[in-house]
């Protein structure tokens, strides 16, 4: 028994992982593909499957809300990722230069990453409440009647973005902190002795060294931004109308509120395909950047 375990230890040790991956990721992935081309009926204790070919793809092409959801997610991603990158880099750069209070700053800046996103949604839902939120009450103290931040079609998406920046800048901060702290201080000091201004040091010394880190951070964050769900779900539920409708929120509605399991599967499959394409492009790109560095 003991000898058998010893001989086959690598196989035995990796078995749980392989089984978990087969049963809990590969099988569901196959199910998802099957779903996308079927009508799935939910009956008590089971499901009925009918193959429908490309019907769901046709529905998708004519689905106006799906198009809006994809567009919104794209706009959302394109706006928040660069803002979070710039703010995260700024904070990381500054924290790296301080000797006093450095730990304090680091501790505070990772707090948003540890909070449940639904709680972050709730924090801001309470603060931005039209009647009793602290924002509008503060504005009222100055005689200004605040707008319905989350119920206005033109303000809802910018508010969702604002909360996202509050939430995810900490992620960029962490990645950039690792990057910035690996740069030897002497490099910047040498440039200063040569008469370079702090801005020139940052632009000509720090930025070029950080280029690979920046590429990784932007790509990672873009992939994560595509997964956005909890915060807009709580803040706006995708509304008003379709103003903040996002892919994942729409899929959840199709799937679990309208119970169109097959069509939900097709939407999910398409999202997964878009992201996979992005990941492949990302891996090629990061390989090239690494080769350059």
């Amino acid at each position, binding site marked *: 028994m003991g000898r058998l375990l*010893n001989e086959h230890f*690598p196989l035995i040790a990796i078995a749980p992982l392989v089984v978990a991956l087969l049963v809990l990721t590969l099988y*569901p992935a196959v199910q998802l593909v099957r779903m996308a081309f079927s009508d799935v009926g939910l009956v008590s204790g089971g499901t009925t499957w009918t193959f429908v070919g490309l019907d769901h793809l046709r529905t998708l092409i004519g689905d106006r809300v799906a198009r809006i959801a994809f567009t919104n997610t794209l706009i959302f991603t394109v706006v928040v990722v660069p803002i979070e990158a710039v703010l995260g880099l700024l904070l990381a750069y500054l924290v790296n*230069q301080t000797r006093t209070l450095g730990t304090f700053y680091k501790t505070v800046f990772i707090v948003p990453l540890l909070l*449940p996103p639904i709680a972050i949604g709730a924090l801001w839902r*309470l603060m931005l409440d039209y009647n009793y939120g602290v924002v509008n009450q503060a504005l009222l103290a100055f005689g200004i009647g605040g707008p319905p931040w989350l119920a206005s079609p033109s303000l809802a998406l910018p508010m969702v973005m604002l909360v996202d920046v509050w939430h995810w800048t900490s992620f960029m901060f962490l990645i950039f902190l690792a990057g910035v702290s690996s740069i030897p201080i002497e490099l910047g000091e040498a440039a200063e002795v040569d008469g370079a201004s702090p801005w020139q040091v940052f632009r000509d010394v720090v930025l070029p060294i950080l280029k690979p880190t920046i590429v990784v951070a932007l790509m990672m964050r873009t992939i994560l931004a595509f997964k956005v769900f909890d915060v807009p779900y*709580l803040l706006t539920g995708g509304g008003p109308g379709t103003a903040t409708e996002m892919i*994942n929120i729409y899929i959840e509605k199709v799937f679990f509120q309208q119970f169109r399991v097959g069509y939900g599967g097709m939407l999910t499959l398409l999202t997964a395909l878009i992201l*996979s394409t992005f990941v492949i492009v990302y891996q090629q790109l990061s390989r090239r950047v690494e080769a350059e560095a």
Partner: protein
Amino acid sequence: MRLRAGPLVRHGVLMSAVLITLLPIVFTAFTSFKFRRDIISGRFFDFERTLVNYERLFEGSRAVFGQLTVNSLIAGIGSTLLVLFIASLGAYTLSRFRWPKRVSALILGWLLFVYMLPPITFAGPFYLIARQIGLFDTPAVLVIAHSVLTLPFAVWLLQSFFAEIPRELEEAASLDGCSRAGTFWRVALPITLPGLYATAILTFVFSWKDFLFALVLTSTPRGGTIPIGIASFVQEWDLRYGEMAAATMLAAIPAIILVLFAQRHIIKGMTMGAVKG
């Protein structure tokens, strides 16, 4: 040196960022200790303190947060133990034994792929499977779902920790008559303790933060978690501000504890995970 004005500006910017980060949490903490009348009249600081909002979460016939907290803890601790078991064994063998290149590349590549996919990819299939095997609306289904969510991250993270162990140490152990399993248990795991801490903390946090799987795989407080309870406040016509704030603070407790006591592990784990993943 022109940089002398620097520290003042630097701490000014950083302190503003600290304020922006903490103020929403502080305001919500205050709201959670207020009576409804003080919330409505907009008293920021000079309000009468009360615990009534917290009491309402846990006491009374309609109070569900006791059950939700228990479920959140079961899902968090259960998935952490399951992930530590599967991932430490898997990561150790992948980084320590010579596998055919194709096998290890396939497993690690698939893990990375799963990690990149939006969790909603698994929500639909999991829902059907959970109904089929009768685990729908139980904490057990969340233990499994959350494990899948964090397994890729955990394997990658632990693998990079195991890779740092000097090989001579293990060779010495096997010369001393230690079996392979014994080497793993008595040599590799103890050295990797910081990595295991980081993995455990982050797995628990992932599980505690999850909303999507709890939303999709449970339907009543029997299986629901704290985020479900928070979200249900929004669906009511009359927003119960005080209780919603109290529930939000309840959800924030692990974050506050961890950031105070395990900040170093979190930063190390998250940075390694983010950069490698």
